[in-house]
């Protein structure tokens, strides 16, 4: 939902970042306002996932120049846990398995960290149990998964549902979903996308990172950005995703060649 007067939540300006001294992001500029859904598309290696990890504060990525402001603050100064507490959420492309750590306990600890930051009280075990069971409905998840270790032995689809469940519990201001559609069959995709749609509100924004149009059939973005060689090459409305589906990414190579990059 595009509103001209909406608050600017996340402001990425000319962001450069590298991993192991290899530059991956080469000047990304993106502005996300309240109520908006943005999709970032592009081929493997275009820097989409790096962008998501840099925003979440992964220690392996080094920002070399540029800025990211979140609600007026310098996001890049904050530790990953501070970012999460302030409302930045990254849905992982490959959610991590953590043997021996109960999913329920993990969800409770992280939910309470965020709640504290919002000035809401911590939920005790019993209250959290009620709360999480209610939120499970967002992704139609079986409560049995709460009793297991975090993501351990979950199928690809179950892991992604668990990510969206975390999003539902953490109630983020900026949700970045990295390839949330990968590894999902069509039914699971609908459930996960339904969850994301339910959680989108006029007060938050969503950054969808995806390869394919099919996720964007379920979640209609306000903006579509095409990323290549570590920057945004083109921005359009949801019709750009449809166009990409038809024409593919060959034009990207031509444009990069014309610009002397690629």
């Amino acid at each position: 939902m595009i509103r001209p007067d909406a608050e600017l939540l996340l402001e990425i300006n000319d962001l450069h970042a590298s991993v192991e001294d290899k530059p991956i992001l080469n000047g990304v500029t993106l502005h996300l306002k309240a109520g908006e859904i943005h999709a970032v598309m592009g081929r493997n290696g275009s820097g989409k996932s790096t962008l998501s990890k840099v925003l979440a504060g992964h220690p392996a990525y080094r920002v070399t120049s540029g800025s990211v402001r979140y609600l007026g603050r310098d996001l890049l100064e904050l530790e990953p846990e501070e970012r999460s507490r302030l409302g930045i959420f990254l849905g992982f492309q490959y959610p991590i398995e953590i043997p021996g750590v109960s999913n329920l306990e993990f969800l409770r600890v992280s939910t309470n960290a965020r709640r504290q930051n919002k000035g809401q009280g911590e939920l005790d075990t019993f209250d959290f149990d009620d709360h999480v069971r209610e939120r499970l409905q967002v992704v139609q998840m079986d409560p049995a998964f709460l009793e297991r270790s975090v993501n351990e032995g979950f199928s690809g689809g179950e892991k992604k549902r668990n990510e969206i469940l975390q999003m539902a519990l953490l109630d983020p201001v900026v949700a970045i979903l990295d390839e949330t559609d990968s590894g999902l069959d069509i039914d699971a995709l609908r459930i996960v996308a339904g969850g994301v749609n339910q959680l989108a509100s006029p007060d938050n924004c969503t950054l969808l990172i995806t390869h394919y149009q099919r996720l964007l059939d379920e979640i209609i973005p306000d903006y579509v950005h095409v990323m290549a060689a570590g920057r945004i090459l083109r921005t359009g409305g949801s019709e750009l995703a449809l166009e990409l589906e038809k024409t593919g990414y060959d034009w990207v190579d031509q444009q990069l060649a014309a610009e002397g990059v690629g």
Partner: protein
Amino acid sequence: MAMTEAWLTQLPDPTGALEPVQRRGRLALTEQGFPSRRQESWRLTDLKRLEALFQLSLANDSSHVSIPDSWPTVPEQALRLVVNNTNDPLAGFDLPEGISILEGVELEQALGHTLSRCQCASEWPVELNHGVNQQILALRIRGKVPPIELVTFATDAMFMPTRVLLLVEEKAELEVLQVVIAKGHAAHSHLLEIHLGQESKVQHGLLALGEGKESLLANMAIEQEVRSHYSMVAVSHGWSFGRLEPNVVQVGGQASSSIHGLSVTAADQQFAVHSTMRFEGPEGTLDQVQKTVAADRSHSIFNGAIQVPRQAQRTNASQLSRSLLLSGRARVDAKPELQIVADDVRCTHGATVSQLQEDQLFYLRSRGITESSAASLLLRGYCKEVLDLLPLDAASRWLDGALPEGETNP
């Protein structure tokens, strides 16, 4: 040599049912002398800490050990026996049906039999126990009996020798948890023999808890007859110096053994696990996982021997050693030792040494959990996988679910 002899001469004279064993043990210690780092199994040992045991006062029938009232209650129907060198653990007990005392000729025949079968009867720590121990708890198990919790406790710079023998008869089933506790620089020397009759089943747990400055020597000899099932879960934490030696022999084949271990060290502690699994018959199985967590400047050692002689065809054994280093100054030595002569066997082994996984830490941090909380959550998860396997709900009763934290320095 001189040190051992000097120590032996000031011990009280051998007495009681184990008198001949004590005499033989002392003779053996004199002949063997003190262990040397030239011996392979002592190569990495801090022998100064072993020597220090000779400074402690031997617990005997005149020692007073008061039982702390902080111990958790025993689960319903389970039997708790307090085993020490100072009083009769069975005094005042009516043993449940199926459990009886082994004494007289029966005891004489059984005593040391399993140690010999496991080829560990003349190991130095075993002879040390032989030389000083006055008491033994020896039980025969028939049928399915209530679970047994054996608690051994030492305090006040005491050297506490204890010995247990369990004769588990054909088709019998036993769940036994040993809790070995030490405080105040005390040391334990523990000897355990379990004989599993045909088709019997034993679930055995050991929870060994020091407070950082204590010592533990524990030798466990397990003999399994045909089609018996034995499972051991051994957890140790807080020992300044420790050496745990599980020796399992499958004498008839077609038996299954499972050994899960977790040893956690911090500060300048040293803890060693020397396990030996020997298959003397065909179609036996082993599932072994040894985990260690080493923090600060501590040193963790694991030697895992698996012996598969010619007659042990179609053995299926797997051994995995997983070590977590929490500090750059901590040290782990892990050595699998596979001796396989039989040709039709499946034996796998692996060893990993790692730090806390960066991607796991980041995942937790990205959910608002601080780095230090994330590290301790991961560590607890790593340990929990073993703790949860302890019988008699030991982890939640004795540890409130997790090992104590504090000394570690992730």
